[in-house]
């Protein structure tokens, strides 16, 4: 059993606090970007639209048609690749989530701050692991701090592929909530693993659970935005005034749906593996691979809800808003499984000092 290094544990907590402050600043920057950029977009929209009109005439009718459809649920059938959206249907970016050439200085600062915060956060997680001489996910505090780090890493990775900066406020906000919850409600000093958790399966099972949950966190944020955007698109289509111009920055509902579907697909496979590895570990630890322990029940419920989500996308009348709701419900189940089930339900899944 490796020695516990309490000094390093303390350092980890200080870094965690530091990361929290950095996230706070990044959060403000992202929020500022949302406000200022949507103003810029509003100003630019008039000129863009006139330029667009000229282009559309030359491009012919088919292009106009495709663009209008960008907002409807039929985009998928047309061009699965992508196009840069003009602002004609109330959004700046389409499937590709490219926003044209406008520079968003504030957003860049926000991303830089997020990267800085993530680096400090990562160090804090590593120090915690080093202090305990094991993987840093042996209790709820560690699961929460490591999990939020995974959320930000997944966000930054997807950011290299897609301009998801509109999600920044949301994701950094969620990470802040997770870090606060960890430090306030779940805090426990660094310590050894209880014997029940001393297994290499802890490394495999929990790490995959953390990564899957991080991806589900991202799609949760996108699904919530999708619901708002779908409502806004409907009201704009009905000829009403755009009441939330901030949402211009957010891609259209269908693009959000498509991307969150892709991420949810990967996360669902991750969750399936989590449950399977969990079963193998359960067999090794308790002598049965499945026993409807409260934690197992909720992992099952989460799996079934997301399976429902994947099927919903292929069911007439269930794609779009309803699918987004399923994605949200699935994520709420994950939160419930982590908080309420861990704290209030009795079960075999033990967490040292919560």
């Amino acid at each position, binding site marked *: 059993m490796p020695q516990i290094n309490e000094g390093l544990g303390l350092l980890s907590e200080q870094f965690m606090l530091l990361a929290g402050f950095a996230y706070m600043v990044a959060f403000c920057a992202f929020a500022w970007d949302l406000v200022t950029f949507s103003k810029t977009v509003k100003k630019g929209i008039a000129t863009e639209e006139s330029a667009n009109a000229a282009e559309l005439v030359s491009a012919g009718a088919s292009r106009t048609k495709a663009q209008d459809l960008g907002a409807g649920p039929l985009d*998928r059938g047309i061009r699965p690749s*992508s196009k840069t959206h003009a602002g004609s249907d109330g959004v700046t970016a389409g499937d590709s989530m490219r926003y044209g050439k406008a520079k968003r200085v504030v957003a860049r600062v926000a991303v830089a701050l997020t990267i800085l915060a993530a680096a400090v956060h990562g160090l804090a997680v590593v120090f915690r692991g080093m202090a305990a001489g094991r993987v840093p996910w042996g209790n709820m505090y560690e699961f929460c701090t490591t999990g939020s780090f995974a959320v930000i890493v997944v966000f930054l990775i997807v950011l290299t*592929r897609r301009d998801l900066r509109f999600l920044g406020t949301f994701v950094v906000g969620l990470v802040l909530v997770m870090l606060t919850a960890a430090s306030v409600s779940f805090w426990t000093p660094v310590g050894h693993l209880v014997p029940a958790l001393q297994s290499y399966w802890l490394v495999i099972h929990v790490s995959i659970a953390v990564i899957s949950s991080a991806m589900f966190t991202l799609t949760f944020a996108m699904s919530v935005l999708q619901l708002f955007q779908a409502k806004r698109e409907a009201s704009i289509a009905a000829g009403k005034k755009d009441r939330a111009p901030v949402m211009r920055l957010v891609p259209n509902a269908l693009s959000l749906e498509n991307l969150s579907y892709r991420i949810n697909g990967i996360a669902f496979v991750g969750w399936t593996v989590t449950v399977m590895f969990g079963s193998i570990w359960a067999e*090794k630890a308790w002598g049965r691979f499945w026993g*409807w*322990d409260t934690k197992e029940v909720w992992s099952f419920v989460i799996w079934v809800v997301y399976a429902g989500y*994947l099927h919903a*996308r292929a069911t007439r009348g269930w794609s779009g808003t309803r699918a987004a709701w399923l994605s949200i419900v699935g994520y709420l189940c994950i939160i419930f499984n982590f908080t309420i089930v861990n704290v209030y339900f009795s079960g075999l899944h033990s967490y040292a000092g919560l």
Partner: protein
Amino acid sequence: MKENLVKKPKSAEAAPAKADVALPQLGFFGMIRWAWRQLTSMRTALFLLLLLAVAAVPGSLFPQRSSAAAEVTQYLKDNPVSGPIMDWFKLFDVYSSPWFSAIYLLLFTSLIGCVIPRAKIHYKALRSAPPRTPKRLSRLAEYGTVQIPAGSGMDAKAAVADAAAVLKSRGYRVDVRDLDTDRPSVGAEIGFFKEIGNLVFHTSMIGVLAAVAVSGLFGYSGQRVLIEGETFVNTLPGYDTFTPGTNFGDGQLSPYSVQLDKLAVTYDRETKAHYGQPIDFTATLTTKDGPGAAPKKQILKVNDPVAIGGTNVYLVGNGYAPVVTIKDGKGNVAFQGPVISIPTDGAYTSPIVIKVPDAKPNQLAFVGLFLPTAVVNEEGVTFGSDPDPLNPQLILDAYTGDLGLDSGIPRNVYTLDTSKLTQINGRKLEAGGITLRAYESFTLPGGNGSISFDGIKRFAALDIRHDPAQVYVLVFAVLALAGLIASLFLNRRRVWVRTGNHPDGRTMVEFGLLARGEDHRLAGESAAISKALHAKWMVSEPETVHHGVGESHTNSDADSGVIMASKDQ
């Protein structure tokens, strides 16, 4: 397949690709057709799936007999009105209840009704050639052209053969057609494993369910509490509790034996915050595969079961068994040995019951606590402060009378019904309670004998399990996972290449791609095919190879990091 071809170019927006995923073509006839169609519809399957999620929840809200039978009994005692009603609704046996079973059986029926027709359709698709080449490839989702310069010696027929070879090397199934016309073409299709994966996933889920059902038939499990030095023999009387599967027979038990030599426990002494928290349990066992077999030393730990005689032995609990000697009123030793005390908290505060039916003239019984490290607080109350035996104490009340053990009614060894007994020692009695430190003894009042505390042993609670079907569950689960990955991440695509000889000597090649279902990597595949075709004919790829509907508009909107020249609708 034909209708897809006809439909697609006509109105791309009216044929969302999801349609062919969602609805199976039902091949069943008869009067029950409608009901069957309802059950096997995607909508019903989705509804049943979500219902299953909801139905699983009560099992986590209320104690379940399968995992916590004692808690259920307690719940029924605490809620005499609502308890039985809930019991009638099987809320304490959710996962074996008729309503839960009904949901998953309906779901699986629906699933079978969905899988079989889809398997048939896919089997046909696997055996048929790629659909005929659309008239206007340029209307497909992805479209491109290659021009082979005049004088290359490559005519339309040779070019189409080359294109077929290129597609084949990319894993496509190809079919060259119209070779006798001046516009020969090749139709190609890829991604059959997507649907196969889908079918394998769903079939494997049925397999998982079947394997779980089988494991309920042939498995068994049992518990045994073993004190250091004791030996467990794998026979029915050897178990404290035993749960056989439906088809269990006595002959299934292989007569191995397990002796617990020592149980070593390590506590955290390093950190203040987790001081005294156990960090390791190691049981040393001597096992024999049969009555005459050679003894073997084995180590049993949490998370590390010992496999023996077709079963696994798990370490699931532990505690102290104080060793006591009790002499009766006649001065004879009425009981000598360790008594199991079940720990209730982190300091191993362990209630203990000692029954001495052999004591004469009066039977004796003791109820109280065992504390490994007893400490007296400011108010004079003794409590346990540490799980290690630093200052072990037995704090007992003594009773005499008929213990009722001879009446034949089974009694719980861990509880004592004191209603018909006479208390002779206790804090409230004049004689006082019994407090025994290590190696002390106490003489009971009224010439009832004495009790002495001679030592401490540890015990291990063992679970013994035999589940022959779980390996099949694993096999089906792994198959399901592989199928899931294939169905989610593979793409089914069709590609057509058509060639023709231009009057000026050039050979014109056009190709188009069509995705079946959602496919965000189609553009990347189109670019890759374009590149491969250009390389094949050693034609340099122009800056903009990739055309939309007769458009040359470009931007650098590369998808998912795929390097490609350009495309815009």
